[in-house]
């Protein structure tokens, strides 16, 4: 298969880069006050692209829109109808979606600061800069049209915790690798976990892990202004509004750092060593990022040798969850499962496919990972708080948390599936009565508790912790579309005659 190469200049940079050198960042939530002014601002906005520059940038600017935002800019309903149902409905659009995402009780959108009913932003402007440059860059990007164009509804600050998340763990270590070269041809069952994924999983307009193009808005070639859009690769008669764009899932997660460390401290009888071990068992990594299961020597496709020490592992060496509990956060979020747990010979594969043989009770119970991956670009907020300080009595109630930002080509199959079946799911990997030890909302389901955490032990009976309080509360969230540069140009042209 020969494919056209990818035009990096058409893709917003956040898809390819985390901008880790740009340690200052701020996320602006806006509503469109005046569409003409907003389009004029968009036209002049210096949106950073995925192109690799000889000198990395000192600043970056990214722009994304909710459905309401696209409507406010004048995108046609016919065009919008090409988007997926979950984007159109929104993160908080349906009770059933909230139920699946665990956004009930304290997480209910009704009590969100933003993104809940009546508080849905139109535009997300993400501003990044090197230390000391953020304020100046903010002034630069706002320009003269800004005030006429937008009403600022929220400004979400971030803080630089040097790669740690607020609980004190190294974060962002595992990311899927994107097949920018377009060499991947994912056909047939994969018998080993791989970390290199088809572009279409994270960018619209390209084949995904099913070798299919995810549906997205396509415009007839004669539609107004559509000539600025690339031609749809799978339908050459159409122009592709989605191509080189993706969906951006944003969730503001308030982390109760004091509550977390106080709980694990109490559960460990205030023994600092045991306390840390329990916290690490909940996460699935050491605080420094070392995985709890040993790394393997055999390379895994899509895992850079430079990150082998933190990432070159699967859970096949730990089938009983003795090293890394089944319910640990990172084991839930990415169980690193292949398509088919079989040997590479035809008989074994056929046997597994048909479910012959005598599979044991816990064999083959988790879905294949590669259809459920997320590129994470989150940023922390709040001051650093060490475990020692967190357990100390202190009335200081300053908020800590993370602005979770996930990029996916299919919100339902990737973000919502992971959140529902793996993170919130009380039955993940044959567990019962427990959800993610960090993210779980602890709401009972069907009369059964969801607040336990179990640590299997070599010797037999597992260590079971009960009554985990909620450590993470959702404060806001929305589904955004992160358009390509050409789609941004298209948006800027709407309304012209």
């Amino acid at each position, binding site marked *: 298969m020969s494919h056209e190469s990818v035009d990096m200049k058409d893709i917003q940079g956040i898809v390819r880069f985390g901008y880790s050198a740009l340690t200052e960042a701020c996320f602006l939530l806006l509503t469109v006050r005046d569409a003409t002014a907003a389009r004029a601002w968009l036209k002049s906005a210096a949106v950073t692209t995925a192109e690799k520059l000889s000198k990395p940038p000192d600043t970056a600017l990214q722009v994304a829109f909710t459905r309401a935002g696209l409507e406010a800019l004048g995108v046609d309903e016919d065009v919008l109808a090409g988007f997926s*149902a979950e984007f*159109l*409905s929104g993160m908080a659009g*349906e*009770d*059933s*979606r909230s*139920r*699946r995402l665990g956004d009930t009780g304290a997480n209910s959108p009704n009590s969100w600061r933003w993104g809940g009913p009546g508080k849905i932003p139109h535009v997300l402007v993400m501003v990044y800069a090197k230390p000391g440059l953020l304020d100046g860059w903010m002034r630069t990007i706002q320009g003269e049209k800004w005030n006429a164009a937008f009403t600022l509804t929220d400004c979400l600050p971030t803080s630089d915790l040097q790669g740690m998340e607020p609980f004190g763990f190294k974060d962002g270590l595992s990311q899927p690798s994107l097949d920018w070269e377009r060499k991947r041809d994912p056909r047939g069952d994969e018998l080993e976990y791989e970390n290199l994924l088809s572009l279409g999983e994270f960018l619209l307009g390209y084949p*995904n892990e*099913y070798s*299919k193009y*995810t*549906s997205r808005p396509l415009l007839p070639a004669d539609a107004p202004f559509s000539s600025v859009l690339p031609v749809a690769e799978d339908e050459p008669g159409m122009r592709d509004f989605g191509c080189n764009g993706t969906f951006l899932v944003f969730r503001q997660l308030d982390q109760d750092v004091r509550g977390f460390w106080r709980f694990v401290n109490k559960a460990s009888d205030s023994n600092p060593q045991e306390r840390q071990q329990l916290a690490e068992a909940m996460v699935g990594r050491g605080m420094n990022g070392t995985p709890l299961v040993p790394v393997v020597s055999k390379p895994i496709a899509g895992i850079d040798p430079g990150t082998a020490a933190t990432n070159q592992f699967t859970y096949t060496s730990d089938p*009983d969850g003795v090293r890394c509990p089944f319910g640990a956060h990172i084991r839930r979020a990415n169980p690193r499962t292949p*398509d088919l747990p079989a040997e590479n010979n035809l008989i074994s594969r056929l046997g*597994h*496919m*048909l*479910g*012959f043989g005598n*599979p044991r*009770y816990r064999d*083959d*119970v988790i*879905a*294949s990972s590669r*259809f459920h991956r997320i590129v994470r670009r989150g940023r922390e907020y709040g001051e650093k708080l060490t475990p020692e300080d967190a357990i100390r009595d202190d009335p200081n109630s300053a908020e800590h948390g993370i602005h979770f930002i996930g990029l996916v080509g299919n919100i*339902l*199959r990737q973000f*919502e*599936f992971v959140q*529902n*079946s793996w993170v919130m*799911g*009380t*039955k993940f990997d*044959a567990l*019962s009565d427990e959800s993610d030890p960090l993210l779980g909302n602890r709401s009972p*389901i*069907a*009369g*059964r508790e969801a607040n336990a955490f179990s640590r*299997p032990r*070599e*010797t*037999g*009976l*597992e*260590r*079971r912790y*009960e009554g985990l309080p909620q450590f993470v509360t959702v404060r806001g969230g929305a589904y955004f579309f992160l358009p390509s540069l050409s789609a941004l140009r298209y948006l800027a042209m709407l309304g012209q005659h």
Partner: protein
Amino acid sequence: MTPQSNFMIMATVTPSRDAELRSVLAEMNHEPGVVNPENALVPFEQLDCVHFARFVILEDKTLDDIRVYGLPRVDLPTYLAFLGDMDGSVEDFFAELVHKAGDGLRNIFMHCDGFTAGTDLLLWIREHNVIPGASYVNWVGRTTRQIREESALRNALVRFAKDNSDSLRGVAPAGIRDRLKTFVAGEVQAGRLALTHPAPTPFMWQLRNLINLLGMPILLVILSPLLLLALPFVLILLRIAEKSDPEVAPRVDAGHADLLASIEDHDVTNQFSAMGSVKPGLFRRMVMIGVLTVIDYTARHIFNRGRLARVISIQFARWVFLDGKRRVYFASNYDGSLESYMDDFINKVAFGLNVVFSNGIGYPRTNWLVLNGAKDELTFKNYLRRHQLPTQVWYNAFPGLTALDKWRNALIREGIEKPSMTDSEIREWLRLI
């Protein structure tokens, strides 16, 4: 062992009483998607042998699809179906049903053609029971009584292990097991736990099962010359059909999708109901009959211990021919969300889905009957959602318990009752608790 059986009482809804029927059924729920097990019409809680049951109105919104073959739409009736899965024989169950829910059922079936105040309910139910083309039971022989007792056993053991964690620390696996066995024996003695021995397997069921087990291969051998002769023609017909059959899988409208989603995920288990028309012509009908026969046979004799091929999440399923094999209704009770269910379909058993549903109008294009089809992810998901029906009333006797939970609890009980176990067996067993 007490085998499971199923029932599906089906009757045509009187069009003028459709709306009234829906509101009567809605009264059986606390809220949409959440049944009141003690409702006044069918008090499910009193029907001890029932695993799952549902009332669903089989209203087919895809009858126009046949037009893609240039054929006129046929207005097939809308049915009310009351179906469920239970332990023991259908006859015994019907008698119990009429006894415990007679008035309620009369109230409901009053909205159907041919049912009057003077109708003999038991007779009517028997006459309106539809036998499925194929059915699947996750674990043949696992009764509601067993599930109830083993769930209580596990809960008691978890509590005991938690309360005695200090005194159990450092004890060797065999010693821990002895303590647990002693505890369980005491609880059984005190009447707080029960571990009832399974009833003997009914002789007639064993005989029928054996006849089916041997009969099918014998029949196949006898027919094999014919089948071999027919095979090339079947393949040619199949390839012609596969290349020309149109797909009908537009995005479902938001209202339909939202309605379906609103009654899902109130429990860790969900219901699924779908219906559609078989592609016109004898060929597809014959393939469908053949495929369902194979599914029924393998479900009966091979996939009867926790898995349907690789799928662990289906507790009960059935495929039912309607209207002289013009249409098929599919019903299942599955663990997890619809998205994870479809993920299983696509990634684990696409071949199985394809052989059945590719004989339905509009299914995504297959290749050699087993390839592609469901692997066309988004088209397949659209197709499925489009054919899915909202279930008006859904009862699950064990909310919060998945098929895997039930399997684990049975393994825990085995470990209590086994005369001896090795140390490594015990260690593995203890991890289940």
